[in-house]
């Protein structure tokens, strides 16, 4: 069922390797022996219906959830077999943008960005921290919101600040959980552009979880569809969607015909 990955440079280094990953919650089998690779420098879009385990997958990658079976390697390290300190070191290389941004609502935008930086690089001077904060806020185009509280920001601005907070640690891999969910079409396009800018400027490899095919088409070098707990189809956008497959067609029809 899995389509050949003709357009992917197979000699490229794999930054994430998922082999035979299974995860259940009680009697509900969410992921069933899933296989997936993320190559250095690519944006991989993961599509799938609600409740198919897309968010569970990326939470396992950062060690927020543990797999029932299978292997998850990030930069060659087994996520579920390393020590807590090694996991913390690994997490510095993996940025995670949450669906609801998960900004610390008792802190200003500046404090939100400073929080991970000062706790992971304690030798930085105040000036260096300020510079780093300004740089990432500028990168997401929100320099003017520095002293605002998260509650004063719009949905799109919160997403951008959430992305900026992950970028401040200079991650090699970015995981975006529904980056365009709940946003208007224009803001969605802005966020899609931002994801591409991040890939280009920070040389990141990314997994983007989404339902939004416009997002998938604009940001994805490769698309993988999670169906029935497995990645049934992988390939470029056209390879995956120029199909008569009854399980895949509804995604395309809903997004582009409606």
């Amino acid at each position, binding site marked *: 069922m899995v389509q050949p990955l003709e357009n992917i440079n197979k000699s490229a280094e794999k930054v994430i390797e998922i082999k035979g990953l299974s995860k259940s919650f009680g009697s509900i089998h969410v992921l069933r022996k899933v296989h997936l690779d993320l190559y250095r420098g690519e944006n991989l879009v993961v599509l799938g219906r609600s409740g198919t385990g897309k968010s569970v997958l990326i939470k396992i990658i950062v060690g927020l959830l543990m797999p029932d079976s299978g292997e998850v390697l990030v930069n060659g390290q087994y996520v579920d077999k390393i020590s807590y300190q090694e996991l913390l070191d690994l997490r510095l290389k993996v940025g995670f943008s949450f669906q609801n941004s998960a*900004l*610390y609502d008792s802190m200003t935008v500046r404090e939100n960005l400073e929080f991970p930086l000062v*706790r992971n690089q304690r030798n930085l001077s105040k000036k260096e921290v300020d510079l780093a904060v300004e740089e990432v806020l500028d990168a997401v185009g929100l320099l003017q919101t520095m002293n605002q509280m998260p509650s004063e920001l719009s949905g799109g601005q919160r997403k951008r600040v959430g992305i900026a907070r992950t970028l401040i640690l200079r991650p090699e891999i970015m995981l975006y959980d529904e980056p365009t969910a709940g946003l208007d079409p224009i803001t969605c396009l802005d966020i899609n552009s931002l994801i591409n800018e991040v890939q280009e400027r920070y040389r990141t490899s990314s997994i983007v979880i989404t339902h939004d095919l416009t997002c998938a088409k604009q940001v994805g070098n490769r698309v993988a569809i999670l169906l029935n707990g497995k990645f049934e189809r992988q390939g470029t956008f056209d390879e995956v969607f120029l199909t008569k497959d009854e399980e895949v067609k509804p995604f395309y029809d809903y997004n582009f015909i409606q």
Partner: protein
Amino acid sequence: MKNNNESLVAVKTAEFTGWFTNVFLTLYDVGLFIIRFFREGFLPPYEIKELIRQCYNIGYRSLLLISTTGLITGLVFTKQSRPSLSEFGATSWLPSLVAIALLRTLAPLLTGLIAAGKVGSSIGAELGSMRVTEQIDAMEVSACNPFKFLVTTRVIASSITIPILTFYTALMGMAGAFLNVNLSEGTSYTEFFQSALEQITFLDITASTIKSIIFGFTIGIVGCYQGYNSSKGTEGVGKAANSAVVIGMFLIFLEEVISVQFFAIFRGI
């Protein structure tokens, strides 16, 4: 009929066993939570800024409620005790009676209960909503230690500020008692406090301090445990806040009974 009874007994036994197992699993989990607090709370790096902010939140923001409660308790306690003492012509003992009652039991217990309601629920709800909105997960994935930042600071802050609030409550209670005695008998400020303080021993102060530190620790740990481990959803936040208050108050009463028995040994009672 016999079979029905037997199956009912089997079901009830299974329910009881399940409940009992759950209680022990929760106690085990709480034990691990407390061990983690001691393991991480006193090792660097320290979250001093957050600790000061929490001390301010727990202490300063409770002052109005604590002041009112302390003042009214002292005033009412003195007024209610007066008739009984005057029957024996012992109204001159009022200041020392109030001082001992306040310092040994009323101030720590009142402060503990008020803090369990105000501080415990606030910690439970705050951490619960942070869990639900994935803010705690966001700290985890950015390689920060949410336990150190959120739990240890709050538990240490409540263990520091509750004893201070306890002595403040006692002071406000004494002020209330003085108000009553002064208005009824015209006793001077110096006379009242000399009489009140001469019965206070070092053991009273030590016992009160230790007790209120334990109360503060209990309020902090219970609030944090409930909030930090709250289930997903807004219902979970409500449950966390509610459980923090109910369990906190229950434990404070239990600790009060145990501490009274314990310090009675030193008093030779």
